[in-house]
């Protein structure tokens, strides 16, 4: 079979043009190398636009006590200490500079009274730390990077899907892609490849993620021989829309709770006050009054007000909501209520002529719009119905903490498809800062790697042809299964068997189901031609979705404890003695089968331990006692 394909050459090829990919491409380009940026959608449409709340960075504009050390400690506590501490350190140290840089590139953040970048409260962050633009921070971030990046000499390849990485011996050599529009193949030859493909949310039925989130980068790296870590940690955001059915899963920003939104069950109880984990008790408000004062940044009984329980970490809030629903205290459509009226009433008693409608429209414009348009509901007057939605994966490609390079020479990863910084649970706001900090580093080190390797790698025509034959196979079957049907079955399976609450027997069934679906996926057929054919695209995505689903399930089975985003009904307690100092590692074995194992986390150096101890009331958590 002879297939024509063009070959495009770049020093650095970046796959994915969300925040991380754009930031990596800008940095690589600044180093003077030739950069190609490939994306599945149009430029500026990536999932980063959905980020609402803000970018976490210890700028200390609102609370002068904030600094990188507190941000570091917050991130580690949120991740239950299985994070890569070096990444968490770099992230906390460099995030402020990355945010200021965005402003220099044209971003327009909301302001403090003295004209600096305003910061807001968010779950798990000790001080107001999230630089934001209303509730559309992600759009501001991606548009700023896009508008800056298009003047940097980066070659952008829009609407192309990379489906295979190429290697030259051990070294990365490039990638094979198809253009979505015409269905033609193209090959990239590159000294370094940066994966920035985002997450895996489309493996689940209820998700806040777009169609693009099919685990491409995870799977490309895994297939090429890289390792994945922490795959069991899938973040279910506590507040997605639940009604009407067609919008189920769409995100309701944590900013709603950060601005005073309150969760209630169908008895009107503020149930979050009833279940506050021990390690957060000292930081949580004792009553409604204190919680609301925290929102305003005011004092309560002479000391700083502590945050309301709605702002506990996402894993905990999501599980509390699931419990309320399971025990019959949910809202009519299987969620709980999230309401702004309590804060409005309380605030209205303090401030004369408080206009609640105007206040909320200004604070939460896109949430107002979203509920008004999609649910016909006015959030300034009526409670929302919310429930957990698959939002983010902490797990991903295992990379070096300083360079973002995987174990494959020349293959880098950053953003959601890379792992390490978030541990068992990501704090809201840390993903946008992660994109910027580690995206920049990935671009910088990919460029350096390319500069150190003067010769271009060789493209192996056999590898290319094999990949293309694989991609065309669904067209050759006249009778076969509908790829959409398989995708839907996988989503149901993952939702029901490897969701928020997990059990060994269910996950073993999930593994069998995944294996069965994998066999059926080899028999899918697509109709029509190669031009902009969603059926074909979905058929090819199945491979990635199945790979990440298996990785999530196998890692979740191995970790026989509950920690962060992983909740095991059969092992409901945290077991730090056995699992507090290890990461799960997934890799392809010599026989082609998926292997999963534990690997110890290197001990934290003394200066970082001192920070944790100080921020943890003088004590070290069990995970860090050596």
């Amino acid at each position, binding site marked *: 079979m*002879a297939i024509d*394909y063009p*070959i*495009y*050459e770049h020093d650095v090829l970046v796959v994915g043009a969300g925040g991380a990919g754009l930031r990596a491409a*800008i940095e690589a*380009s600044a180093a003077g190398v030739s950069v*190609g940026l490939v994306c599945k*959608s*149009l*430029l*500026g*449409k*990536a*999932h980063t*636009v959905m980020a609402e709340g803000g970018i976490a960075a210890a700028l200390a504009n609102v609370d002068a006590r904030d600094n990188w050390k507190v941000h570091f400690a917050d991130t580690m506590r949120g991740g239950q200490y299985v994070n890569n501490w070096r990444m968490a350190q770099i992230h906390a140290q460099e995030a402020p500079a990355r945010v*200021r840089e965005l*402003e*220099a*590139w*044209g971003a*327009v953040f909301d*302001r403090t009274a003295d*004209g*600096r970048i305003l910061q807001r409260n968010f779950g798990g962050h000790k001080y107001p730390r999230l630089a934001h*633009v209303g509730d559309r921070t992600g*759009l501001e971030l991606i*548009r700023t990077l896009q*508008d*800056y990046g*298009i*003047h*940097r000499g980066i070659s*952008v*390849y*829009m609407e192309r899907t990379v489906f295979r990485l190429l290697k030259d011996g051990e070294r990365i050599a490039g990638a094979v892609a198809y*253009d979505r*529009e015409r269905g033609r193949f*193209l090959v990239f030859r590159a000294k370094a490849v940066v994966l920035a493909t985002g997450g895996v949310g489309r493996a689940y039925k209820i998700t806040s993620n*777009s169609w693009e989130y099919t685990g491409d980068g995870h799977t490309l790296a895994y297939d090429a021989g890289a390792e994945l870590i922490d795959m069991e940690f899938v973040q279910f955001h506590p507040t997605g829309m639940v*009604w*009407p*059915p*067609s*919008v189920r899963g*769409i995100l309701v920003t944590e900013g709603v709770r950060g601005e005073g939104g309150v969760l209630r069950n169908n008895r009107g109880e503020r149930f979050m006050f009833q279940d506050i984990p021990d390690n957060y008790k000292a930081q949580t408000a004792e009553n409604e009054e204190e919680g609301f004062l925290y929102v305003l940044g005011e004092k309560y009984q002479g000391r700083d007000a502590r945050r309301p329980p709605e702002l506990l970490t996402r894993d905990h809030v999501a599980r509390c909501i699931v419990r309320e629903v399971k025990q019959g205290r949910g809202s009519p459509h299987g969620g709980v209520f999230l309401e702004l009226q309590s804060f409005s009433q309380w605030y209205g008693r303090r401030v004369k002529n408080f206009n609640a409608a105007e206040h909320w429209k200004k604070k939460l414009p896109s949430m107002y*719009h*979203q509920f008004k*348009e*999609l649910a016909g509901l006015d959030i300034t007057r009526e409670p929302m119905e919310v429930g957990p939605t698959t939002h983010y994966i902490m797990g991903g490609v295992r990379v070096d903490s300083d360079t973002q390079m995987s174990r494959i020479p020349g293959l880098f990863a950053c953003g959601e498809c890379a792992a390490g910084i978030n541990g068992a649970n990501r704090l809201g706001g840390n993903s946008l800062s992660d994109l910027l900090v580690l995206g920049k580093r990935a671009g910088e080190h990919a460029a350096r790697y390319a500069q150190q390797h003067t010769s271009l790698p060789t493209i192996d025509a056999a590898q290319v042809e094999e990949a293309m034959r694989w991609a065309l196979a669904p067209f050759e079957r006249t009778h076969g299964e*509908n*790829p*959409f*049907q398989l995708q839907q079955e996988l989503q149901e399976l993952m939702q029901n068997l490897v969701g928020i609450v997990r059990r060994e027997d269910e996950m073993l069934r999930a593994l069998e189901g995944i294996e069965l679906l994998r066999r059926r996926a080899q028999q899918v057929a*697509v109709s*029509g031609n190669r*031009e*902009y054919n*969603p059926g074909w695209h*979905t058929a090819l995505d199945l491979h990635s979705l199945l790979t990440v689903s298996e990785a999530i399930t196998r890692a979740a089975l191995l970790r026989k404890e509950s920690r962060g985003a992983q909740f095991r009904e059969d092992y409901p307690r945290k077991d730090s003695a056995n699992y507090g100092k290890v990461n799960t590692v997934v890799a392809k074995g010599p026989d082609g089968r998926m292997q999963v194992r534990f690997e110890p986390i290197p001990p934290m150096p003394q200066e970082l331990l001192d920070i944790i101890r100080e921020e943890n009331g003088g004590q070290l958590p069990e995970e860090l006692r050596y």
Partner: protein
Amino acid sequence: MPQILFRIWRGDRHGGQFRDYQVEIGEGMVVLDAIHQLQATQAPDLACRWNCKAGKCGSCAAEVNGIPRLMCMTRISDFPPDQPIIVEPMQTFPLIKDLVTDVSWNYQVKQRIAPFRPRPPDAPDGTWRMSQADIDRVQEFRKCIECFLCQDVCHVLRDHHKHEEFIGPRFFVHTAALEMHPLDTENRIAALKRDFHIGYCNITKCCTKVCPEQITITDNAIIPLKERVVDEFYDPVLKLIQLVFRPRRSSSVPAPSSSPHPQSAPTLSSASATTSAPVSPSSP
């Protein structure tokens, strides 16, 4: 479940026709849900762009019953159930397939507009000070999700096909966001007149009407820009002064940025507009 008739444009650059599909309607469904249902059941090769399905990315722009809208934010219950819902691609851009059009022209236009060039930082730590009141207007413009519905409805582009001369409402909003940015020092007024032909806009406000982000495009962006053009080029007092002193003209060519990265020539390619040529075509 109730059914509604959808009449959807099927075709490519060579031609096409409307085709009818019955869609089962559930509560709260939007037009994009109907398209997805059709892809999964009756028409797996029905092409449509979408991403967020929450009105935030601007990918699923199309014309529903003749009105440019985001399919993800158009509720089916807003239409009479006994009449077909007609869905067709945006008319201002070349058709690729079904509901997908080639919008790459917009990306090329943006590259012609001089980028942000900030004044030197206000504080020794490299930061600036801006008051919220001074950025409210710019933040309105920066809500734009680049769905290009305003471009689609603009008669200068849609009916008169002035794509070569006119940049359209989206990019007047973009230019306004730059021009009204408190930190920006670039001047794009001459380019607005000479290269982007803002004068072609006769403020019919169709763009404002279709904007899903409710940006007041005409009143807040285009008219103030027109006023700036008038001030610079048609002010009689200024004209008199200019007779005596030679005028200083601004440029639309990107000027060196004060940011840390050097400028270099832009390249951008989409599937339909490939500017970076392949280096070695091969057919193994």
